């Protein structure tokens, strides 16, 4: 293991001098216990590889939920200086703009009462899970171009757009940079959840840590919320596939050598780099439209079970991306911040966040593993000072999918969750077992670390009462 030195209470560093090819240090936010988990897989080596990217500035960063990925670790942040620094599609990942959206119902758990099961059932009917090519809203030709260019703008409520990171639209998207194959994969998938760790979860606000901020976010104890986790589906997967290949082929031309082929990159201002950023923005916009369509499905389920008034009063708290690269300014320098399994967490005062939240900071949602709590956080100034405006994104996997399946049968897990009062709808017992709560790190510890590090602070804790799995 490389020489880790402690920089702060919950901050560790591998100095750039540890390897001849590292351009900047590799830093990890963790306590000793999480660090021990992190050191058991290849995350740190992968983070050191990220530190070799041409144009990287500051440090390659890992959040406390980091785990081994392919190329970049999941839970990593890397900023490159524009215009010469590189963009790496692998630094965003295959599920471009995978993210989470939180809706708050004007309803308490007690008011929901026995209609909870019906609501979970109706959500599962409204939001196609697993994966299917034609179950979602079909968008082809110019209709699909509109989504790629502008995200959910033509069908979202204004107040939803206002409460979405980047208002649900990254600038610079070009549908022509998205291959025909990517378009085909995405054409019928709008409003579908996908499989793996994607979900729609019905929750109760269990605990409030910060009354003033929770009030600003419109969250109160015992309120019912819905957390949506999905991304850009097959369209995003194909965009990443296409551009990893294109950059793999272009790297020699730019004289770039990397320790891992999956880190394939090109200068952001090169033809390949620009084209990827145009396609990535289009896929990110598609993902925001996808979560909007899912939110619409949830509202229609709410209308059927609880009435149109409740559906109309179901507000969007916010929507955040956790797999994306964005152009941001730090100390007067224009940087391209890659967040792969990390969330933007801008503090109070940022003009990038909705006016209603500007005094308290940007909301961040950290889904726990299935059956455990999720957290609402708020961005803190430390995020800007230490982590290019970023914080963690989830619990982070601890066990592989096979290892999880060896530990428990899906049917047993379903029974255990239902015994704890969580209504479960999932198309696959196998898929359910792979997402078992013990396959993930302890989300409470992860959020405690980002709070101690000053990246974000806890606002509320949400407990699941129903889950629809992808």
């Amino acid at each position: 293991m490389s020489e880790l030195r402690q920089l702060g209470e919950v901050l560790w560093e591998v100095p750039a001098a540890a390897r001849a090819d590292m351009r900047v240090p590799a830093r990890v936010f963790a306590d000793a216990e999480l660090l021990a988990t992190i050191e058991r897989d290849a995350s740190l080596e992968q983070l050191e590889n990220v530190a070799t990217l041409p144009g990287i500035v500051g440090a390659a960063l890992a959040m406390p939920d980091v785990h081994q990925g392919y190329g970049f670790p999941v839970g990593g942040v890397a900023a490159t200086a524009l215009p010469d620094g590189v963009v790496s599609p692998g630094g965003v990942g295959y599920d471009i703009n995978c993210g989470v959206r939180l809706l708050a119902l004007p309803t308490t758990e007690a008011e929901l009462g026995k209609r909870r099961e019906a609501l979970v059932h109706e959500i599962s009917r409204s939001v196609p899970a697993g994966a299917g090519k034609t179950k979602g809203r079909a968008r082809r030709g110019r209709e699909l171009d509109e989504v790629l260019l502008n995200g959910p703008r033509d069908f979202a409520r204004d107040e939803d757009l206002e409460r979405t990171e980047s208002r649900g639209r990254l600038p610079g998207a070009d549908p022509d940079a998205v291959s025909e194959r990517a378009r085909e994969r995405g054409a019928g998938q709008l409003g579908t959840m996908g499989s793996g760790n994607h979900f729609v979860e019905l929750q109760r606000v269990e605990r409030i840590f910060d009354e003033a901020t929770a009030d600003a976010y419109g969250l109160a104890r015992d309120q019912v919320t819905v957390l949506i986790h999905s991304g850009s589906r097959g369209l995003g997967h194909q965009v990443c596939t296409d551009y990893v290949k294109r950059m793999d082929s272009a790297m020699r031309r730019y004289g770039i050598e990397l320790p891992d082929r999956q880190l394939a990159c090109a200068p952001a201002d090169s033809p390949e780099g620009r084209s990827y950023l145009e396609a990535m923005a289009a896929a990110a916009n598609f993902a925001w439209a996808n979560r909007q369509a899912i939110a619409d499905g949830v509202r229609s389920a709410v209308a059927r079970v609880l009435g149109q008034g409740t559906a109309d009063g179901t507000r969007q708290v916010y929507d955040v991306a956790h797999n994306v690269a964005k152009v941001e300014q730090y100390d007067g320098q224009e940087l391209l911040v890659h967040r792969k399994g990390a969330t933007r967490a801008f503090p109070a005062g940022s003009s990038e966040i909705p006016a209603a939240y500007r005094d308290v900071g940007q909301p961040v949602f950290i889904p726990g593993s299935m059956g455990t709590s999720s957290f609402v956080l708020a961005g803190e100034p430390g995020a800007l000072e230490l982590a290019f405006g970023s914080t963690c994104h989830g619990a982070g996997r601890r066990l592989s999918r096979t290892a999880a399946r060896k530990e428990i049968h899906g049917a047993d897990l379903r029974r255990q969750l239902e015994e704890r009062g969580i209504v479960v709808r999932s198309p696959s017992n196998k898929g359910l077992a792979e997402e078992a709560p013990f396959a993930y790190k302890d989300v409470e510890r992860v959020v405690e670390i980002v709070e101690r590090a000053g990246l974000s602070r806890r606002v509320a804790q949400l407990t699941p009462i129903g889950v629809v799995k992808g």
Partner: protein
Amino acid sequence: MFRWVDHTSELELEIEAASEAAVFAEALAALAGLVGDGDGPPMAREVEVAAEDHALLLVEWLSELVYLSELEELVPERIAALELSEGRLRATVEGYRGRPRHLVKAVTLHRLELSGDDDAGWRARVVLDV
């Protein structure tokens, strides 16, 4: 012969085979076992992929099979004809129209390897994002 090596969030496929063509056949068998589900009428597709090197050709091959399973619901079972030349692969893939699990997001270049010769045998490694 193939085996899956399980990592925290992805699947690594290791293949050993007597010929390079057999590496591609083993890769199909591995993917079929991973995504195969349901039953339905027989189906066949012509596949042609090209790449700058043969390790990348293996990625292209698997990517094509993932695409066909996602868009056309093809559960691949066997290769009826395979033509492997410099940087190019042509094959007829036979199987059935099923309900393949949409498990594989993408085929990555992470730890990608394909090497060997017909005397010592061929080895390949490819990591899938699932």
